[in-house]
């Protein structure tokens, strides 16, 4: 638009030199851009190295019943059982990146992000994905973030979220399970063991339990705020005592060999048989 306006007022000779100048300007611009790009690449090289440290991945040899102890600050934790005698840790660290050093001890693998980041209050989330032998004992804690444990069949599974985060425990075969949070739902999908103890507690989160239809257990379920405790198919399979206007249900199913204690102070509890 500008060019069409100027062209009629310029002499023909001058008009002939315009393409040549434009070509030179474009070449200069390209050179400048190339230089800027090079500078940028040179300048950002150390940063790229830092970014590379924000992803952690390492594999440790492990016996079948090893203990995994993880104390995270914030972020997701996924623990999955697999059929190998090793633990594989993969972690994505959001900026400002936390730094941690897993420690393999005689009694298990310890990851203490809280301790390793002491004095650095503003670090970003660390999202873990950890694969462990099926028979592992798993003890997980985080201040904030979801916890998922899948296909773990060791002696104990413990998942604690100090503030908010969902807890999903699926495919569990452990004789001791504990899960607690303040905000966030809890899903417990497990085969109950004889003599097993299962404790699920949330302040403001729904608690869903999927249990084998043939399981025998003693139950104490408390939902004082909503009085919403749905026993599903188990309602007709056990003997129940509905206490304090249905705010608590105490009862027994089958041989009562396992013990389930579940409490949500402000939400509901639902049982599903499978």
């Amino acid at each position, binding site marked *: 638009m500008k060019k069409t306006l100027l062209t009629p007022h310029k002499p023909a000779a001058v008009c002939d030199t315009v393409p040549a100048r434009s070509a030179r300007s474009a070449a200069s611009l390209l050179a400048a851009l190339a230089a800027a790009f090079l500078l940028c690449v040179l300048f950002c090289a150390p940063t790229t190295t830092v970014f590379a440290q924000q992803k952690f991945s390492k594999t440790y040899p492990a016996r079948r019943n090893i203990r995994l102890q993880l104390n995270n*600050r*914030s972020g997701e934790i996924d623990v999955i059982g697999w059929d190998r005698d090793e633990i594989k840790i993969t972690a994505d660290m959001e900026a400002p990146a936390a730094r941690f050093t897993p420690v393999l001890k005689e009694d298990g693998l310890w990851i203490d992000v809280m301790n390793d980041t002491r004095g650095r*209050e*503003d*670090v*970003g*989330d660390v999202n873990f994905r950890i694969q462990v032998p099926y028979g592992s004992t798993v003890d997980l804690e985080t*201040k*904030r973030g979801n916890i998922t444990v899948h296909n773990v069949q060791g002696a104990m599974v413990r998942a604690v979220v*100090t*503030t*908010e985060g969902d807890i999903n425990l699926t495919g569990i075969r452990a004789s001791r399970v504990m899960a607690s949070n*303040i*905000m966030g739902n809890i899903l417990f999908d497990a085969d109950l063991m004889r003599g097993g103890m299962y404790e699920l507690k949330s*302040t*403001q989160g729904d608690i869903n339990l999927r249990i084998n239809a043939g399981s025998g257990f003693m139950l104490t379920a*408390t939902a*004082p*705020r909503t009085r919403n405790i749905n026993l599903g198919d188990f309602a007709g399979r056990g003997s129940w005592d509905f*206490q*304090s206007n249905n*705010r*608590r249900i105490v009862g027994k199913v089958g041989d009562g060999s396992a013990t389930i204690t579940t*409490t949500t*102070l*402000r939400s509901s509890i639902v049982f599903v048989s499978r």
Partner: protein
Amino acid sequence: MDCEKCSDLLGDFLDGTMAGDDHALLSTHLDECLGCACVREEIRAIVTTAAESREHFVAPPNERALWLRVRNTLEAELSAQQRAAVTTGSPLGNARENFVSRLMNKRWALSLPQLTAAVVAIVVGVAVVTTVGVQRLTINEGVKQETARGGARNPNPEQQVAIQYLMQRVEERKSHWHPRMREAFDRNLGVIDATVSDSLKELDESPHDEISEEALNAALRDKMELLREFSEL
């Protein structure tokens, strides 16, 4: 024999139970000593008199009955004297009764201002007693209710101090946290406080509700735990 030995043996001598050398010696001494001879004569006179009056001092056939009669007679006389004292207005025995009777028999002649003052004093007195009584009753009821709630209404003093201390530490550190962590903390503390508040309301309505008390205690424990962990963050 001297006078002292003589006085010791004089009784036996007069009874005629003394014989032998002592009797001879004592007889000799009485012949020689005028004082001892006089004593002998006085004792002999007493013994003779007593023997003559013996029939006058014989005990009655039923001595106990006699003493009972004597006592009854004395008591009857004493009662008669007391009755006499009452009717004659004895100042020693009946001072209090006299005061009451004087008070009751007195004629009260009050002026209108005196009467008004008396009525006002009675009204004020009754009002004060009633107010104090009602206040005490109210306080007692309050204490009873608090006691009935088993102290679960409020955290114990140590817990309160601990919560205040931890809260203060958290507030000091909070500004350094990652914003998402700060928001999560505030949100979750709010949920816990709401649970505490709900439980307290439930306990106000049903002070003995076990489940509400458990919920309150659980929420307070969660709060302590949350503050403790975040105070170290």
